[in-house]
């Protein structure tokens, strides 16, 4: 099993003709993801060739959904248009919208996210790498070759740090049910707890890796949730122990304000709630091995 996506996922790619959209559509199709439609305003009627697949391009998500039955979308459009694209996707009736785009104005996102909630869809991101369910499909930009099927769920605020952790798990022969990057922006659609809930409901997930960073208190809330609701082991990692307070560390959300949101505090709360904390990325692998009794 997997969370959020599976073999019934029918994906529309918004911004399929752009540099990132076209590159990653190729990658997704290669991996076996069922990409059924592309959307680029003004290019409706054209098609996108990926391997032996010819994917129809539409001007709008509405047309894409009506013509292809798409039930999920991934957004690669530039930041100025991305919140509009997210709302368009939610309005078209898809269940899942994965927003890869980085640099969307935060106030645009507060509105767009409210809209997605009103329409009852799930938003992942923005400014996230998406998700992959090894052997079933991927939506976004996580490099598939570092993953393999198995019993570990991975959820992370970071992109490349997730790849690091997943890569090391895979090299050690430990596969994943689903790897989810939730993104590092202040306003995101899916948070740690949403993913933990989904992993808890997934019988195939037997352990979870949760990778956090400085800023906010999402990790602390997730830790409390883990203690109250989860029976399977959770291994944690927090990036930013050497980050100075008051400076934004790349992610708009990665900033230590006041005494809240330091790595030390998050590590403390993780451990307090029974989450084994890795000091180095490589330790994640070893703690998971231990947790699974391998």
């Amino acid at each position, binding site marked *: 099993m997997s969370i959020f996506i599976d073999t019934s996922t029918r994906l529309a790619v918004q911004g399929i003709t752009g540099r*990132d959209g076209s590159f990653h559509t190729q990658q997704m199709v290669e991996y076996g993801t069922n990409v059924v439609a592309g959307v680029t305003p003004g290019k409706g009627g054209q098609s996108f060739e990926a391997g032996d697949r010819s994917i129809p391009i539409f001007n709008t998500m509405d047309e894409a959904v009506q013509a292809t039955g798409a039930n999920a979308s991934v957004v690669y459009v530039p930041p100025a248009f991305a919140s509009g694209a997210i709302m368009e996707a939610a309005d078209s009736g898809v269940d899942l919208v994965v927003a890869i785009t980085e640099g969307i104005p935060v*106030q645009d996102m507060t509105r767009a996210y409210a809209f997605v909630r009103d329409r009852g869809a799930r938003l992942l991101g923005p400014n996230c790498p998406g998700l992959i369910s090894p052997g079933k499909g991927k939506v976004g930009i996580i490099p598939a070759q570092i993953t393999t099927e198995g019993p570990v769920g991975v959820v992370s605020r970071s*992109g*490349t740090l997730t790849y690091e952790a997943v890569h090391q798990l895979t090299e050690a022969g430990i596969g994943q049910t689903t790897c989810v990057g939730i993104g590092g922006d202040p306003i995101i659609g899916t948070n740690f707890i949403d993913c933990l809930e989904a992993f808890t409901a997934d019988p195939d997930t037997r352990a979870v890796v949760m990778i956090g960073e400085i800023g906010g208190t999402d990790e602390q809330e997730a830790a409390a949730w883990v203690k109250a609701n989860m029976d399977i082991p959770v291994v944690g990692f927090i990036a930013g122990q050497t*980050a100075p307070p008051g400076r934004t560390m790349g992610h708009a959300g990665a900033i230590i304000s006041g005494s809240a949101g330091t790595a030390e505090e998050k590590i403390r709360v993780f451990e307090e709630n029974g989450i084994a904390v890795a000091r180095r990325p490589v330790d994640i692998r070893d703690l998971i091995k231990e947790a699974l009794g391998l």
Partner: protein
Amino acid sequence: MDIHEYQAKEIFIKAGLPVPPGDVATTPAEAETLAKELGGRVVVKAQVHTGGRGKAGGVKLASSPEEARGHAEAILGMSINGLTVQKVLITPAEDISSEAYVGVLIDRKKQSATFMVSPEGGVDIEAVAETNPDAILRVPVDPRYGLLPHQAYRMATFLYEDPKLVKQATRVMHQLYTAFSDNSCSLAEINPLIVTPEGDVKAIDAKVSIDDNALPALPEVAAYRDTDAEPPSETKAREAALSFVKLDGNVGCCVNGAGLAMATMDLVKYYGGDPANFLDIGGSSNPDKVVAALEIITADPNVKVILFNIFGGITRCDDVANGIVEATKRIDIQTPIYIRLTGTNETEALAILKDAGFSAYTSMDEVVETAVQFAAQA
């Protein structure tokens, strides 16, 4: 992006907020002229992007234009938290009956803009939050509806009892929210919002941060950027679309992705080293970015070794490899470079680096430990 108090005041005035007059001076003579124009007692305030101005002696009361000139002389050129004061704001000294705090910021938990108001103004609101949390009212603003009249009124009654003050403060809430929305702020703060002995509510300090992501759409606000008020390395990084934060160590770090960048810094520390910087070359990287990154890192004389840690997702490893090769052709780099590349187009990248005479790692721990050891010996 942080902007100066005098710029924030311009934004406030546009939104209709009751802001006392005032202007900015870059020389003591200008300060004197402005003080003369305003008449009466004035305040001379250092314009720097950092807190604690008052404690550092950057805010002074002057009873005469001559005194204002003297204060400006002392404050201009002063260094506060490492930043040199280049401008002072001259504004009338107001008589104060009471001080309140009013701020709006983006609240991650509420997924919306949220007001924080407190009758305990003029002090650090973080401190109030810790010592007397009940003195702060938080009101989230539903982005679908904006600030609603009853919310503004409720906050005003939290600050004041007198209906005349409540009326003024209600208006202030709406005006502050307008300033916050119209300028895509991540923070808009009045501290203090004062009541004068005459019963007028006034915003006598203004603090505003703008969401960097919104700057392309707001050229007027983007023009507020004061590159003199930030280190040149950060200006250069921003212009190259790199996320960069200068630190005090000697291991220069160049990583893709903020989380991995922080984890790399942490690992440098773990192996006994000290990172010289945080640097995220971002997604969709291109060779020019790598060139700029190397230029920024090598401009720091502390840097003994350069550490690349690249895990390819949206960033393609071959772009980074090309960038490194290109950069070493364009600029003379004496500092040794340790490279770790893996992920998307890893094979092509390793080939490019090999062709150019570089050797590369695939293990993060290995590259970090080796670089740290080199830095320690250098």
